[in-house]
């Protein structure tokens, strides 16, 4: 999986076709195999409407995973991202119920998740605390706030805006999917074409190098977590439009799915290696397996075990490849 990242980094005029093929993340091949397997098992599987559904269902997780990828590149994980998504659905409705225009409430919520992210970054960077623990604490705090605001159940506010986001289509694709595409492009540009992105790779790869170049790792980390928070906020707004209510536990567990998708996409937890392109395939893989298992009628209790096994297998293959390439 060494060449995974090269997909994004080299504009490579000199790259031959073969080299380009080699740079495709292995997870993409896995995706093709699995789609082939499912369509073999069920002839109705391979339909445009089914894929459109998968894409729509995958969208909020996809957006969260783009943010998570940035965090993983810094050798961290943000376990509060799922809680942040749920929080946005709740807090937006909560504000709207109190007379704030829905769209404004959405923006306020996104600003809140940015701040939550910044706080995460501050704790991780200043306190030198493992991100896993710091953000786990944050996850619980944010969850509690969401539950407090809703008294534990769903809260509602009706608006046409939801349908605009979920039902407007451009080229047969709903607006929300285009939003995800826009987030992808922004993250891609940030990682590849901005100083901030270069610094994210530096945070994961060699912090000493940043310090010596006069860059503050603390500021960079805060920015990165805030950036991921903002992206989670956008995912929260999309989720709200889909569920049309404030639901305090709607996105529970997404942070882990996002980590899994990121790792499946070839981003490494160790050394600032990878990028956001692989993450698309990672998310699609998870969602397509889930959808395919539904289509061929596998009971949902087995589905999780199957997905878990595939995630483990992918990571073990990656580890084996890494160890082999070292020898």
């Amino acid at each position, binding site marked *: 999986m060494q060449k995974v*990242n090269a997909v994004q980094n080299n*504009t490579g005029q000199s790259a031959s076709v073969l080299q380009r093929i080699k740079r495709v993340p292995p997870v993409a091949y896995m995706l093709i195999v699995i789609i082939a397997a499912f369509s073999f098992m069920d002839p109705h599987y391979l339909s445009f409407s089914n894929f459109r559904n998968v894409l729509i269902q995958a969208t909020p997780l996809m957006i969260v995973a783009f943010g998570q990828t940035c965090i993983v590149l810094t050798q961290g994980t943000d376990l509060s991202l799922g809680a942040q998504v749920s929080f946005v659905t709740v807090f937006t409705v909560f504000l709207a119920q109190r007379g704030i225009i829905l769209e404004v409430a959405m923006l306020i919520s996104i600003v809140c998740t940015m701040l939550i992210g910044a706080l995460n970054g501050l704790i991780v960077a200043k306190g030198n605390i493992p991100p896993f623990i710091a953000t786990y604490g944050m996850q619980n705090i944010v969850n509690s706030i969401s539950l407090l605001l809703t008294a534990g159940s769903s809260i509602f506010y009706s608006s046409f805006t939801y349908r605009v986001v979920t039902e407007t289509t451009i080229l047969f694709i709903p607006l929300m999917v285009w939003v995800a595409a826009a987030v992808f492009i922004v993250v891609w540009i940030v990682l590849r074409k901005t*100083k901030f992105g*270069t610094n994210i790779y530096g945070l994961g*790869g060699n912090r000493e*190098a940043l310090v*010596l170049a006069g*860059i503050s790792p603390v500021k960079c980390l805060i920015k990165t977590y805030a950036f991921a928070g903002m992206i989670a906020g956008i995912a929260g707004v999309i989720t709200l439009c889909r569920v049309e209510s404030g639901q305090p536990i709607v996105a529970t567990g997404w942070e882990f799915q996002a980590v899994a998708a990121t790792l499946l996409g070839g981003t490494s937890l160790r050394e600032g290696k990878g990028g956001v392109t692989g993450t698309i395939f990672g998310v699609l893989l998870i969602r397509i397996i889930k959808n395919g298992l539904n289509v061929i009628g596998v009971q949902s209790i087995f589905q999780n075990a199957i997905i878990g096994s595939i995630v483990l297998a992918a990571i073990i293959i990656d580890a084996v490849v890494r160890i082999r390439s070292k020898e």
Partner: protein
Amino acid sequence: MGKTILTARHITKLFPGMKALDNVDFDLREGEVHILVGENGAGKSTLAKVILGAYKAEEGEVTFDNQIVKFNGTKEALAKGIVAVYQEFTLVPHISVAQNIFLNREYRTKLGLIDHKRMEKEARELMKSLNCEYIDVKSHVKNLSVAEQQMVEIAKALSFKPRIMVFDEPTATLSEREVDSLFAQIHRLKKEGIGIIYVSHRMQEFPLIGDRITILRDGVKINTVGIDECTNEELVNMMVGRDVSQVYVRTENKHSDIALRTENLCDHRGKVRNVNLEVRRGEIVGIAGLVGAGRTETAELLYGIQPIKSGEVYVNEKKVSPKSPKHATELGIGLVSEDRKRQGLALDESVALNTVAVSLKQIFPKFFISNKKITEIALDYKKQLRIATTSVNKACKYLSGGNQQKVVLAKWLSFNPDILIFDEPTRGIDVAAKMEIYGLMDKLASEGKAIIMISSELPEVIGMSDRIYIMHEGTIVDEVTRGSEEFNSESIGARMMLGSGGAENAES
């Protein structure tokens, strides 16, 4: 020799509880390589850091181009063209070479995005000026070899248009060929009039690149001499402050039974091919060879780290097959590994715990251990080996390289194996500690241990060994005995490179 660019006068730098530099004078001319030499803790890196602006001296002044400068941090020194090429690589692995060179100074397009094309163009020019066009400035640093990464470091330093470059132990991680190309670069930089401060303690390098040498000891400047004005011996004397005409101590002792012998030893990776060697009790046997000749790999087979493909190993003439390091220690084989930081020590653990790491089971055959006893044992070795640490409960990572290596030795002494393999035992440690380690090896040999010494430093192999095997591309190509005509660095060096010579082992 050009005009003087930089002078440091009466520099005194205090660290809590010690004077790191005491009234030190130093000057640097254009186009000269000025070597800073001294033992660990002598203050050479501290002086370099004062010049680089990383440290602020309590007293003294630095003049640059005849003007007094006071740097607040490395950035201001950088602005004047004083740059460092660091020993540990300061590159980000998964961004491009060009991005690394221009880290935090990225060119940007009108949109504020990174201008990769322009950075790559300039990076390419820098690489060209270093004769390194073969390094693709678009590829990730991770994909480069160590030497190539160092070239990127130099290119990065050059991109600041430096007047002064500071190299801190640049050859520590390089193979010989890579060292040659580094020196070629340094010569080129000299010709361009750049003043170079070269911090090192590898004396064999000095005549190859140096112009003047400044010797520091315990924070005090001992002398500044021209490269031709003093012998190695005088240099070492100045560094350690006492007579060291006897760097290598070997006492004559009787070599008795064969303790370890191999027959046609091969590994699975083709790095060790038909190796036949033997070591007797009381003998120190050197293995000389270039990096990659299969020396370490041979040790790894004997110590059970790598599986043996074919061939036999005999310990005390009994056929054995070391399956794991644990098994090897049970056979009485110990290995002082090449990489003490990663393989030799648990760096985060205490000196005491490291001392008993291998012998724990011997000391405490029953279930429970006694920390008191461990401390006693560790204190004993601390005294015996003169390990400089305030407490045996200190984590090993806080010790200097030489003292860390002594802890590794303490670990093996407390286990007391019959056969000890030393792989690069003096790498990265200062002369005084080196001498102590040589003394210890000699003592172990006279006690009847069988010792194998692998080293890239020919003088020490020749100085310490009774016999030397010369390895080349995985096989032993020759064997020379102390006292024979070929027992000198010219002849051994030539055979290391060419692999010619005694052919009896080389048939494969």
